[in-house]
């Protein structure tokens, strides 16, 4: 005898919880299966940007999906507040990618132009140093300018995770915590998800387990070759308002703490590396010199869930209807489309045509070349 559900979401991090948040409003019997112990590291370690500009340089569908997510974010924040009374501190007054050299500025301008030519509708403009200073005072002498995107913003990602969890609990969504999925067995009318603490039956199964999706996807005949990409974050003590807008590597939270990120390291561990901390701290001080006087409160490293091309995966099992895999490194930014666009499609059992470019067939060449 096992529990039976309409949908089992494997993974209770930001991606799984966002999908479940969208599903919960549609009425299915729903269970979220979360991993063991220190699972959902990316959901806890991330920087908290709701970020549009520069994403999907070579994948217009990803750029459009990201922009749709940013535009749906106010609805997500409002529904979370309504469901839980919690404020996830979402701001969306724009964000800046800072350029520290003329070469970097020219390359950024070319990127923005290239994306626009391919149909990107994000509201991005290049700002020279003077125009940038009008929006973000206190920038260092090395700042040449940057790209400003009116669709960018940020939120408190820990509060987002907590609010999603609270909304799911309030809706009576079943939860299996500290549960490792050992096998997924297709049945005549659904799937049997085998865990160490018993089996769960569901008509549909959605894999949203972060890095563990690489292990789980073959159970539904999909290849999702995600790998860990390490990022460091430094948290500085709370200070008076200093940064009116988030920068891609620097933001001030609603409570005054300044977060400094972000490194992109092709490593799988989450040990804190003081050399990397030094490098990102020095860069932060070049961007905002006043930060030299700020105090470090703590620092951590976490793992992004990176696909070979950096573009998310939304894939249906080619042989088992009703089984899906989801993987991305932007669980915060994409939370709103995961809830409001992806979740209804998963319940229906059919991914929309707009998500066709996110299938796993594109990795066949990667695997063949490896």
């Amino acid at each position, binding site marked *: 005898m096992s529990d039976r559900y309409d949908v089992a979401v494997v993974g209770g991090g930001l991606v799984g919880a966002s999908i479940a948040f969208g599903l919960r409003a549609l009425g299915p019997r729903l269970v979220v299966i979360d991993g063991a112990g220190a699972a959902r590291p990316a959901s806890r370690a991330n920087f908290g940007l709701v970020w549009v500009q520069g994403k999907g340089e070579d994948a217009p569908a990803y750029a459009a999906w990201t922009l749709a997510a940013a535009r749906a974010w106010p609805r997500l924040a409002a529904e979370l507040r309504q469901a839980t009374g919690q404020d996830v501190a979402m701001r969306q007054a724009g964000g800046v990618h800072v350029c520290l050299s003329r070469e970097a500025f020219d390359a950024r301008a070319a990127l923005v132009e290239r994306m626009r030519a391919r149909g990107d509708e994000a509201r991005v403009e290049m700002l020279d140093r003077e125009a940038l200073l009008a929006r973000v005072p206190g920038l260092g002498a090395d700042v040449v300018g940057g790209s400003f995107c009116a669709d960018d913003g940020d939120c408190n990602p820990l509060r987002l995770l907590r609010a999603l969890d609270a909304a799911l609990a309030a809706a009576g969504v079943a939860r299996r915590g500290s549960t490792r999925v050992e096998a997924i067995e297709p049945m005549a009318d659904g799937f049997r998800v085998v865990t160490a603490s018993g089996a769960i039956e569901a008509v549909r199964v959605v894999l949203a387990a972060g890095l563990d999706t690489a292990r789980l996807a073959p159970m539904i005949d999909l290849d999702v070759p995600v790998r860990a990409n390490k990022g460091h974050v430094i948290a500085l*003590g709370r*200070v008076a308002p*200093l940064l009116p807008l988030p920068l891609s590597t620097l933001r001030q939270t609603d409570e005054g703490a300044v977060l400094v990120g972000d490194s992109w390291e092709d490593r799988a561990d989450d040990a804190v590396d003081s050399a990397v901390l030094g490098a990102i701290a020095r860069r932060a001080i070049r961007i905002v010199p*006043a930060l030299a*006087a700020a*105090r470090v409160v703590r620092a951590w490293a976490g793992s992004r869930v990176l696909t070979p091309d950096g573009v998310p995966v939304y894939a249906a099992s080619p042989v088992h209807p009703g089984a899906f895999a989801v993987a991305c490194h932007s669980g915060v930014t994409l939370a709103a489309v995961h809830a409001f666009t992806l979740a209804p499609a998963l319940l229906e059992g059919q991914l929309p045509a707009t998500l066709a470019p996110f299938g796993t067939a594109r990795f066949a060449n990667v695997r063949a070349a490896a």
Partner: protein
Amino acid sequence: MYARLPDARSETIAVAIDGEPFEARAGDTVAAALLASGRAAMRSTPVSGAPRGPFCMMGVCYDCLVTIDDAPNQQACLVLVAPGMRIRTQSGPVALAPPAEGV
């Protein structure tokens, strides 16, 4: 609330607390000097404005943050007093001073 032990005999060190002169003792941490001056709270928090004072006295709780010689958010329990030191209690979030020209 706090009082010096009667046998405390170390030499005095003149500091300023919120602009007022105070005689600390050699070996005092800034937190100890502030407690000896009669202050229990030495800052109010940036978010709610609640008063805070030293809790752990060993660098862990970050509740004793003060401004020392114009550097904000210093852990008072980890810094020893020095002659002429200017100590300021904090109210809410403190602005980071822009660095001097040429830095």
